């Protein structure tokens, strides 16, 4: 075990993770530092192959038809030194009737000049479930570019849940770009939670494409920016011609404090008269009535703001 691996595990513990998870034979995992695979385990019903290349890591993940993976799969990605590049290319296939939940821990505690890119292509079959929760820990340097890109397609009567969060440490530059497509009776739910400060730059584009009858979509974001940080959130939800009975909602809330700046662009596009998509977007500072209420219970203004912001991002 080299130093980087040990430090990666230490950061993982700081994020609330436990090394015992990585030793547990019932739990699949994948640990990648930089572009080097350190550790990997598959379980029955799950094929997990990873290969380091000069310019990144290729990961193949397949959940065999009908298999519901009992325990969440833990993926640890990170770079411990101040600089480096990590490029993950993930090809995932969740076959018909299969289900999996992935907890992805992305750790860059000393980032000064780091690039972390993820290109994911995920194919979800019929009656299948896929949950992907990605949580970042960045430290206070702010010298990082994070670019997660995903194209996710769902068959019929399937479910996708994604949650992306950067709440610990500086964001740096985030360029997130997700495309999701739902077949008949399938549901998409995507949540992004980001806290930006310093001169962080946040760009999030999430696009849900409701292709099938009675498909469902919820694109939700909670962004807080302060200091000189900037954010732009583009949330698109489209109901196609064939999406009769589809329902969708875009829900974007951004809190702006100090000299920060935020933009929210909700975009709904409906091609079927029997589909319905709604949206709400609000940008504002911390609500005065909320502040007064908490302060009347003895909290200082700063403590009250902290409670409100944490609530938004919870």
């Amino acid at each position, binding site marked *: 075990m080299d130093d980087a691996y040990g430090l990666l595990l230490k950061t993982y513990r700081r994020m609330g993770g436990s090394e015992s998870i990585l030793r547990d034979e019932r739990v699949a995992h994948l640990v990648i530092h930089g572009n080097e695979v350190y550790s990997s385990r598959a379980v029955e019903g799950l094929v997990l192959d990873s290969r380091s290349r000069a310019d990144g890591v290729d990961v193949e993940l397949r959940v065999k038809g009908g298999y519901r993976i009992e325990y969440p799969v833990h993926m640890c990605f990170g770079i411990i030194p101040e600089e480096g590049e990590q490029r993950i290319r993930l090809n995932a296939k969740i076959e018909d009737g299969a289900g999996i939940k992935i907890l992805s821990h992305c750790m860059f505690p000393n980032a000064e000049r780091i690039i972390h890119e993820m290109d994911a292509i995920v194919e979800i079959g019929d009656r299948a479930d896929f949950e992907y929760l990605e949580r970042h820990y960045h430290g206070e340097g702010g010298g990082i570019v994070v670019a997660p890109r995903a194209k996710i397609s769902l068959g019929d009567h399937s479910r996708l849940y994604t949650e992306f969060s950067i709440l610990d440490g500086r964001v740096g530059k985030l360029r997130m770009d997700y495309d999701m497509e739902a077949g008949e009776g399938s549901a998409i739910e995507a949540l992004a939670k980001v806290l930006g400060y310093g001169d962080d730059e946040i760009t999030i584009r999430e696009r849900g494409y409701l292709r099938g009858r009675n498909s469902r979509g919820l694109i939700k974001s909670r962004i807080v920016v302060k200091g000189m940080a900037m954010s732009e959130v583009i949330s698109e939800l489209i109901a196609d011609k064939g999406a009769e009975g589809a329902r969708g909602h875009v829900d974007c809330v951004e809190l702006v404090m100090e000299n920060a700046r935020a933009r929210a662009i909700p975009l709904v596009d409906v091609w079927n008269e029997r589909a319905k998509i709604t949206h709400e977007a609000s940008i504002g500072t911390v609500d005065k009535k909320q502040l007064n209420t908490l*302060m009347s219970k*003895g909290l200082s203004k700063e403590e009250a703001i902290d409670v409100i912001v*944490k609530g938004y991002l919870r």
Partner: protein
Amino acid sequence: MAMKDRSILEVRNLNMSRGGRSILRDLSFSVEENRVYGVLGPNGAGKSSLAYALMGLEEYKPDSGEIIYQGKEITELSISERARMGITMLWQEPVRFEGLSVRDYLGLCSRDGDVREYLLKVGLDERYLERNVDDTLSGGERKRVELASILALKPKLAILDEPDSGIDIISLDYIAEIVYELKKHGSVILITHNEDVAMLSDRCLLLCDGFIVKEGEPGEIVSYFKRKCVPCPTKRERYG
């Protein structure tokens, strides 16, 4: 003199205006320890503005006058500073908080850790602890949670702004129980337009158009209010 020694709050010649309009006019009164002080008045009388001024909201700073709490002038103190001295307020329309559970919300207020008892006192069971203080609660439920938070604080002075408004199924007995619970630890300013609620007070004043019209025993004030203020003579003169 003896009365003065027992007062927890004294308001002296308080004047406040907003947007060039006089809201509170030369108000003077005092609230004794462990007593309930009613502020009765019609809509627009200045009752909530008085509550905000006493709590210390930035936008409701008095133009002149003094607010004395436990012998110390607090007119210039912030909300937080007043709250830390034992003053708190029940808001007429409590706000919602996304992502904050009832347990955590009450935890901000409770000094003894166990918050379940306060929920039970307002008619909610412990299943509510895991609910969020957001728009998934009805208006009545939210108000009850707010009442629980006030009980948990055990304030020396609780300002209750229309405690009965917005609660779905409510009885006067229920409000009375909460008021008497608060009275065990301190004093209560009970702001209301409801004569029955005003009758829960030990002493009461009638506020109209920012003035104290009358101050005295609650029966006397309520009787005067019913005779002289319903319907409001000022509005009758103004609108015919």
